[in-house]
C-alpha cells in the first residue's frame, strides 16, 4: 500500500510541475521603499485584493469572533507564507490555483451560511499561506527586498480590518443582501478567471 501511495505522490508532483507557471509579483516601484511597494502591491493587484476583500466580507458576515480570528490568521499566514515562499522559491502550483480562492470565498459569501469561527480562521489561514507564498516567491524571483512582505501583510491587515468591521455590524436587510451579491460577483469572476487560465 505504501508503494502506490508514493507513486501517487510522485504523480501529483509531476502533474503539478507540468502545470506550474511562473509567479508574477507585479511589485510596483513607488519610491516609498520596499514596505510602501508592498502596501501598493495589495491595493493595485486585483488577484490579491479581491480575495482579501472577499475574506473580509466572509469574516464580517460570520460575526465579531470569526472576524477577530480571521484577521489575525489571514495577515499572520500571509506574512509566514511570504517568508516561506521567499526562501523556497517558485511553488509548484498550476496557473489556475489562485482562481480557487475567488470561487470558494465568493461562493461562501453568496451562500451566507453561518460558519464556525475556527472554520473561518482555517480558510483565512489557507488563503494567507497560498497567496503569501506566491507573493514571496515572486518577490524573490524579481530580486526585490523581502521587507516588501511586511508592507503586504500590513495592507492585508488594514483592508481586512476595515472591511470586515463595516460588514460585521450588518444584520438582516438589503445591506447584507448587497454583500451576498458582491460574493456572487467574486465567484463569477473566479469562474471566468478559471476559463482564462485553462485557455492560456
Amino acid at each position: 500500500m505504501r508503494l502506490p501511495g508514493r507513486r501517487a505522490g510522485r504523480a501529483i508532483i509531476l502533474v503539478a510541475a507540468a502545470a506550474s507557471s511562473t509567479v508574477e509579483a507585479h511589485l510596483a516601484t513607488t519610491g516609498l521603499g520596499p514596505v510602501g511597494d508592498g502596501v501598493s502591491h495589495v491595493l493595485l493587484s486585483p488577484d490579491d485584493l479581491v480575495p482579501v476583500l472577499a475574506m473580509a466580507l466572509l469574516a464580517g458576515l460570520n460575526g465579531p469572533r470569526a472576524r477577530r480570528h480571521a484577521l489575525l490568521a489571514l495577515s499572520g499566514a500571509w506574512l509566514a507564507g511570504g517568508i516561506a515562499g521567499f526562501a523556497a522559491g517558485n511553488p509548484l502550483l498550476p496557473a489556475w490555483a489562485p482562481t480557487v480562492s475567488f470561487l470558494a470565498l465568493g461562493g461562501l459569501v453568496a451562500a451566507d451560511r453561518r460558519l464556525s469561527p475556527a472554520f473561518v480562521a482555517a480558510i483565512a489561514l489557507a488563503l494567507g499561506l497560498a497567496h503569501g507564498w506566491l507573493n514571496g516567491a515572486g518577490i524573490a524571483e524579481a530580486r526585490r527586498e523581502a521587507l516588501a512582505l511586511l508592507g503586504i501583510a500590513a495592507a492585508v491587515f488594514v483592508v481586512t480590518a476595515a472591511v470586515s468591521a463595516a460588514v460585521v455590524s450588518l444584520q438582516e436587510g438589503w445591506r447584507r443582501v448587497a454583500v451576498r451579491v458582491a460574493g456572487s460577483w467574486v465567484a463569477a469572476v473566479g469562474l471566468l478567471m478559471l476559463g482564462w487560465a485553462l485557455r492560456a
Partner: protein
Amino acid sequence: MKGLLSRLGTVAGLVLLACATPAFAHVQQGQAQGLVTGLLHPVSGLDHVLAMIAVGLWGAQLGRPAVWVLPVTFPMVMACGGFLGLVGIGLPGIEAGIALSVLLLGLMVALEAKPKLAVAAVLVGAFAIFHGHAHGTELPAGQSGLLYSIGFVVATGCLHGVGILIGVAHRWPRGRLALRVAGTAVSLAGVAFVARAFL
C-alpha cells in the same frame, strides 16, 4: 543678450538631462484597458442591456427573495457560459438565445408573471448562459483577462441594479402600469432581435 539666452538654454538642457530617469513603459500591459473594456462591453449592445434591466425589473415585481436571487443567479450562470466559451465548448443558437431572452424577459415583465422562484431562476439562468458565452470571451488581445472579467461582471450587476431601482415604481399603481409598458417595449425590441437572428 543672445549669448545669455544661449547659455541659459544649455544649462536648462543639462539640468533636464541630469534629472532624466528611464521610462518604465511596462506598467502591467493592458491592465486598465481590460477593466474599461469589461465595464463598457455589456452596455455596448442593446440586447444585453435590455435583458439585464428586464431581469432587475422582473425581480422587483416578484419581490423578496426573487429581487436578489435573480441578480445573484444571473452573473454566476453567465460566468458558467463564459467559462464554456473560454475552454472552447460551443453552444448552438447563441444569437437566437440572446434575442429570445430579451423577448421572454420583457414578456414576463409586461405580463407581471409570478411563477415559482425556482422556475424564474431557471429561466433567467438558462438565458444567462447564452449572454456569458457570447460576451464573456470577447477580450481584445493584450488586455488583462482578470480585469476584463471584473469589469464585465460588475457592469452586468449594475445593469440589474438599474432595473431593480426602476422597479421601485412597482409600489404605486401607476408605477406598476409603467413597468408593464416598459416590459412591453422590451419584448417588442426582443421581437426585432429574434427576427434579425432568424432571418
